[in-house]
């Protein structure tokens, strides 16, 4: 039996729902463009920590939810999140032992890839998007990652997910 199969799932689902709420919360002007992609960070965390229970399938479902709430092409965020989860799960043993600064540094290209995939799909589908500020969530996402990581680790410890 795998270790994390027996664990309770509600803390993870709860965190994902909370992440979705953060994504649909209206923010004033400039903060809107700077909003980090909380759900991508959550998907990265859980698929890194418990890849047997929370990986590509979860990422895909969450992505569909995000597509519906953000009014984007159905499947766009799902595809991007799914690929992000795949990369993380593929390398989870490697990055799990990274110290936090190094981990943060390796989150950056993953978030950049995520944003690029969304950008790419937009381009193919003919949805226009202005350039420069579009990449802001990659930066802010990387900046908030240490906080997210530490907070989720303690959340995981307190709720005994996968213990």
């Amino acid at each position, binding site marked *: 039996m795998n270790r994390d199969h027996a664990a309770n799932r509600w803390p993870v689902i709860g965190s994902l729902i909370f992440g979705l*709420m953060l994504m649909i919360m209206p923010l004033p002007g400039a903060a809107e463009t700077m909003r980090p992609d909380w759900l991508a960070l959550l998907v990265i965390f859980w698929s890194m920590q418990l890849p047997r229970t929370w990986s590509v*399938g979860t990422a895909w479902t969450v992505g*569909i939810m995000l597509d519906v709430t953000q009014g984007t092409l159905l499947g766009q965020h799902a595809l991007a999140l*799914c690929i992000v989860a795949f990369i993380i799960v593929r390398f989870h043993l490697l990055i799990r032992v990274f110290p936090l600064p190094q981990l943060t540094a390796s989150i950056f290209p993953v978030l950049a890839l995520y944003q690029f995939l969304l950008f790419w799909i937009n381009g193919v589908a003919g949805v*226009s998007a202005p350039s420069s500020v579009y990449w802001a969530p990659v930066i802010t996402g990387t900046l908030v990652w240490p906080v997210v990581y530490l907070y989720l680790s303690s959340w995981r410890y307190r709720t005994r997910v996968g213990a």
Partner: protein
Amino acid sequence: MLSFRETNRRNPGRIPALGLRVLALIAISIALMYFDNRDNHLNTVRKSIGAAVYPLRVVVDAPISFWNWFGDLTTTRNELETELDHLNAERLLTHVRLQKLQALEAENVRLRALLEARARVRDEVRVAEIMFVDANPYDHSLIINVGSRDGVFNGQALVDAKGVVGQVIKAGLMTSQAMLISDTDHALPVEVNRNGLRTIVVGTGEIDNLKLPFVVNNADIRAGDLLVTSGLGGAFPAGYPVAVVNSVTRNPQEPFAEVTATPAASLGQVREVMLIFAGGTRNAPGVGDE
């Protein structure tokens, strides 16, 4: 004998059938996107997931609603009286103007009858409240609190007290998504109120700026001109103010003049909008204004 468990322990990082699952999910995503982009087959899927997410939206909006409610509750008597006086004065003014309008309308109907033109039917409106401004900053869109249950349809025009706000792009069951005229994907056929010059207003992605990319250099248009809907696209009824021309730059080397305009409606501030049920447009095929 080397059992499966043994191999698994030697290579603990291996997740079974991961690649296969990813490929399957990618294929499903691409199929979904293809059908979603092509036509609106997936509207029912969208609607049902949207209904499932609806409670979350309500929870997120709760603090704002509570704050508004609390603000209403704690308005002092004094403020209410001042507001009442103000409203009474305003009502008097509008009444006077309305008297004139009624006379003018009657006259207009008579004149049109003389010209054997069809009298313009007054459009029916319905007030809708804006629930959310969409989370995606590159989509200038709103979520309003009415849906197909209330008769909202795709392509329906949205106006506020001052002018055109946008149009409904996805009519859900209880909520609908509307695109603002400032969205880069939005174009709207208009005419200059002063001389009837027809052109198209396109969004720039900035909330207080629109552009008119197809005005020829020698066209009679100048700063301060009011642009109203021409009704030629089929989705918007004619005669609603859209924008005021801001600047006209004529460059002889270019085929078209550079014209910018400021939206008449306060796109960034509206809380309530009006949906227009115009006679005839309900049966118009598709969204003609895109």
